[in-house]
């Protein structure tokens, strides 16, 4: 590596310059919400381990406006993650049979089908 690598100056807001960059940044920023939600589950389990009253307070906190706003935003970003992840799947794992390369469409559709089944399954289990 050279001792003084050339670093081109980039404005901090480069990701606002084009729609494509902005949707890229939205996809990347989904990780903040996904990570925060993992931390929130740990917190919920911790409150559960403390006892009934503490867990009740956690459930009450989930009903507060800041929590609802956070979860609404988190859901939007989680969906951005899901859609972008599925559309990248055939590019990350291109399927090939013999000489023939398969098109990505069915792979993406299969991901959506599994997603619907998994989501419906979780909803059913949660309701019982």
């Amino acid at each position, binding site marked *: 590596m050279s001792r003084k690598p050339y670093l081109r100056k980039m404005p*901090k807001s480069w990701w606002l310059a084009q729609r494509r960059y902005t949707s890229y940044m939205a996809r*990347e920023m989904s990780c903040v919400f996904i*990570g925060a939600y*993992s931390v929130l*589950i*740990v917190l919920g389990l911790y409150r559960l381990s403390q006892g009934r009253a503490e867990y009740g307070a956690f459930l009450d906190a989930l009903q507060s406006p800041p929590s609802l706003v956070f979860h609404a935003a988190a859901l939007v970003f*989680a969906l951005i993650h899901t859609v972008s992840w599925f559309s990248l799947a055939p590019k990350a794992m291109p399927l090939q049979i013999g000489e023939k390369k398969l098109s990505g469409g069915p792979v993406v559709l299969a991901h959506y089908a599994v997603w619907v089944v998994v989501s419906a399954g*979780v909803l059913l289990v*949660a*309701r019982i």
Partner: protein
Amino acid sequence: MAKSNKPIVWSLFAGGGMLSAFVTPVLIFITGLAVPLGLMSLDSLSYDRMLVLAQNPIAKIVLFAVIFLPLWHAAHRLLTTLHDLGLPKGRIAMTLCYGAAALGSIAAAVVLLRI
């Protein structure tokens, strides 16, 4: 050949990305919106029900995976995105991102084992 931790980091990123693509939206919907807003019964997340769930050994493993993998996915993606935003991908950023994911994973394991 130089040793690289890339395969481990990458498989955690990919595994976490896949898992959260499938389950995170529905989980956020249930715990953060549907139950708090009353679209679904509060019993879905009741103390007794969640305690039975968290005390089941298989459910413990599932819960740990649902916490741990997306957390590492998020840490890795955040590190690369900070780089895109002009923060150098140095030792400090790496320690903060992966360190936070490690702490979160340990906390999850400890809490799940003690319930």
